[in-house]
């Protein structure tokens, strides 16, 4: 009956019509735990210094824990285990559907599932996390009841880490029921088991189990709390950093799962661009959307929308080959996402913005001179730092929603179509988990600065952008014709108008930048 070598080979033979499950003994105990106040009178008896891990058919575990398929001749579908636990049927139904159909298929309506249109969204519904249980001993009582001797689950320790869990005779048979108290009580995972009570599953669909023996009631409640309530919910954006591959998964895109990542990531990036001292927009974003800053600082919400439209988009449209560097598959084969962490992404944006600011500082073109002579520096002094009105200030498109949007679009799109040449996949993932956000971004900036191609390309793009007239329609010294042209950049129609004109400007510059701009314009089907 036992096939393991070594530790279990000496164990006694189990009765016929019972089943013995091989188990691993997991020792978890620290000396400090000896100082815990054990108090059996308060259901806090000292537990064993180990627990067990094994797998068991879901249907068998269900029977052993008293969770039965509903029948008309039973008043309750679960025996009272002595632990007050509420069951939410809808949650078990959700789990049952998930096991059958996976996500997101399980959340579709019957009609949608029947329509076949979304068939490609069917995926496996694994349940890899363990059900946590307590195996009752012969002396354990619950509301005056004990487990009948013939119904006990026995555990025999072998040598080393091995053990054997022997189920009661007949427990593996369909329809088996304990004669008194069920021998196993569920600490965590009851809804998963309830899911199996309602639906037809094959008898060999197994669940992983973590089993305590003789764990007192108060410790069971404590375990439930630490598993379900205490842990902080994982930040969805962080999840996409831990598994960058998720960014490129098409099924997530179909059901807007990416929205969670994109929105959270966009806000985090804006927050870092505002907060990082090396950012050209350090304390120069209207984070609370306060009135009175129009034309000086772009709001956080506008920045978020612009990042979502550019770097963090999946694709421009179904027809366009231009995706977002942080949100889609990148490279000529469109097979991989960039494994850039949040710090890497921030560093890239800071570098691009810094290059533009430096390039503008060097130009002495009429548009820049007009903005500089028109504005008073004191208006643009924040945190003791003066700003170049040609980069940031009133009457400057770069201080308006449309300008930021087009800047982000331009950097993203040109780098996207040159991803292979720039070897974007060859950099990234420089995060040091021990440091602060600022420290991590600093490390990424340093690392990015050492790359051979990326900084040089960003410099070239910045120099061409700096030769574009960024005055707004309200800007100084505009001719009538120029003012009329720039009036077209106002309002919702202004995004496309400005983007088109900037791309044309880049295209006319020729060279590496011009070639990239041409590719983007072709991809977007913009007239040259």
């Amino acid at each position, binding site marked *: 009956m036992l096939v393991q070598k070594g530790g279990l080979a000496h164990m006694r033979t189990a009765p016929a019509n019972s089943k013995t499950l091989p188990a691993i003994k997991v020792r978890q105990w620290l000396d400090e735990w000896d100082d815990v106040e054990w108090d059996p009178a308060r259901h806090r008896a000292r537990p064993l210094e180990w627990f067990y891990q094994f797998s068991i058919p879901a249907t068998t575990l269900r029977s052993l824990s008293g969770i039965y398929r509903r029948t008309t001749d039973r008043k309750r579908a679960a025996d009272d285990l002595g632990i007050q636990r509420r069951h939410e049927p809808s949650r078990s139904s959700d789990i049952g559907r998930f096991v059958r159909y996976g996500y*997101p298929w399980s*959340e*579709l*309506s019957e*009609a*949608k599932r029947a329509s076949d249109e*979304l068939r490609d969204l069917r995926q496996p519904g694994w349940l890899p996390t363990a059900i946590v249980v307590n195996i009752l001993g012969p002396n354990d009582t619950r509301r005056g009841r004990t487990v009948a001797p013939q119904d006990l689950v026995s555990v025999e320790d072998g040598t080393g880490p091995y053990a054997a869990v022997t189920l009661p005779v007949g427990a593996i048979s369909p329809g088996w029921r304990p004669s008194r108290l069920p021998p196993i009580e569920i600490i965590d995972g009851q809804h998963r088991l309830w899911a199996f009570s309602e639906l037809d599953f094959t008898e060999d669909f197994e669940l992983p189990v973590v089993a305590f023996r003789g764990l007192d009631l108060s410790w069971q409640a404590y375990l439930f709390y630490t598993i379900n309530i205490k842990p*902080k*919910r*994982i*930040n*969805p*954006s962080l999840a996409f950093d831990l598994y960058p591959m998720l960014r490129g998964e098409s099924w997530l895109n*179909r*059901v*807007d799962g990416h*929205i*969670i990542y*994109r*929105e*959270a990531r*966009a*806000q*985090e990036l804006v*927050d870092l661009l505002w907060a990082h001292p090396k950012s050209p927009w350090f304390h120069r974003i209207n*984070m*609370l*959307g306060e*009135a009175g800053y*129009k034309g000086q600082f772009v*709001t*956080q*919400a506008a920045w*978020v*929308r612009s990042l*979502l*439209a550019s770097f963090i988009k999946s694709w421009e*449209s179904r027809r366009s080959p231009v995706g977002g560097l942080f949100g889609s598959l990148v490279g000529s084969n469109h097979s991989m996402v960039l494994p850039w962490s949040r710090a890497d992404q921030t560093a890239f944006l800071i570098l691009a913005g810094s290059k533009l600011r430096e390039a503008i500082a060097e130009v002495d073109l009429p548009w820049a001179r007009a903005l500089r002579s028109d504005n008073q520096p004191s208006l643009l002094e924040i945190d003791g730092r003066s700003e170049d009105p040609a980069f940031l200030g009133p009457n400057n498109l770069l201080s308006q*929603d*449309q300008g930021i949007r087009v800047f982000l679009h331009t950097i993203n799109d040109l780098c996207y179509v040159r991803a292979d040449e720039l070897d974007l996949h060859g950099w990234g993932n420089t995060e040091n988990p021990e440091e602060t956000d600022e420290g991590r971004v600093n490390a990424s900036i340093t690392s990015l600065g050492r790359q051979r191609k990326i900084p040089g390309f960003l410099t070239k793009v910045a120099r061409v952008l700096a030769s574009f007239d960024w005055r707004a329609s309200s800007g100084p010294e505009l001719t009538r014709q120029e003012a009329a042209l720039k009036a077209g950049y*106002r*309002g*919702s*129609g*202004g*995004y*496309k108008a400005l983007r088109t004109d900037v791309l044309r400007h880049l295209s006319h510059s020729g060279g590496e930048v011009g070639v990239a701009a041409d590719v983007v314009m072709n991809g977007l089907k913009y007239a040259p």
Partner: protein
Amino acid sequence: MPPRQLLGRARRRPPAAHQPKRLNQQQQQLLHTASRSSVKEALEAVEVHWKSGLWLSPQNHYRGDATERIARDGAMGRGPVHAHLSEYVAVSAIAHCYDGWSFLGRAIEAELVGDMGTALHLAYYAELRAAMSILASNGVGVFKRKHVVIDVRGRCHWIDSLPTHEFAWLALEGFAASQNGVRALLNAVHPGGIPLEEWLRQYSSGYNYLSSQWIRQWGVDLSRWALDRDFRNTVSYRPSQFSILGPGDVRGAVRSVVGLWLLCEPGSSGGFPVLDRYLLRECLDQMFRNQHGRSPKQAPARFRRSISSLLTAVVPTAGMSVEQWEAFLSRTSEGSNPSLLGQAATYGVRVGPDSSRQVISRAFLLMRLATGTAWELLSQAFPTGPDLEPWLLGLSNCRPLWGSEEMPRPLTDLWTDVVDASHDLAQWVTNTEHATHHGLWSQHADLAAVLGTTERLALWGLNL
């Protein structure tokens, strides 16, 4: 009369003669059988026609004048065509939502023109459409004197004899108090991208009363106007010059309208992130007060701890960092409420010079709920998004949202028009010594028109 807290009690109860009637027991029981899932299924069934630019099948029995068809069928002893009627009610949830925003937009235009009587009248009809949209999303169709409840099997049942306005109010009031209503209305609001109900559940305090409180406060016009015929007639049929003090104050009107729009900046997926976080904050304040017997201002440390604990359990995914949320909810930042919330909580027994703004404010909040329930319906019926592109493309012909050029994508780019118009008009009232309605419309009609196109709120709110 100073503005009152949004969730506080009304200063004065309506006179006894105006206390609302009740639905009889049979009607109430019937309303409890209304099924949202049936509406969802009906909406899924009808989507196939949207590609052709039609809301319903050309063969739908209720296409055209549904009210007349229902009355005629009733006179001839014919029962409802269940599938067709269910589909009609399902799409009406979306259509009423859009129409409600249209009415509100026209009300805002009237307010900016200085015609407060018309503003009040149209804002009331926006409220009525909001109620009809919310009910339709949840299985109740409001018609003329014969209304319908769709049960879980998709069968339609009539509720007879109550006029439209009266039934709409009574059904909405009853719905808000039901378990389904609590869930639907609290999940219509999404602060930080998370349904309000989830926030409140984590706050460890009872919250089931909140949806009823909202509807009672924001639906006060519906309750009075539906049941107080004299009041309705005063505004709708009597010469406005005799009953409403005027003309309106153009500065106040512009500031009020700009203040409304400041709450409307869409998130990346549309919605109402700014408004929703104010609503959340008001709810938390109320719940803290109920739980501890003191206001957050009286027990700031305790309140901050409760907020901190809440933000550990609820991780907002969009809009602001956790630190910003903590500062906002504990009123360390943006401590004051928007004036719109105060206006919505204020009503006078008689129609007065501020009445139109108060009704506009309440209409706006009810429309927010209606849009949220319609959005929930759409997103549940179409997890990968509804195909409403043909309808959207046709909008440019009947609403001045964009010109003949390409429809902007994303639609949230339309926000920038509002920013420009709000800023420029706000500057104008500040810098103009003798600002008049005539001056506003002769010099800045284009800007005022932008602020009147609240249809864009339907598009953002439904995440189209």
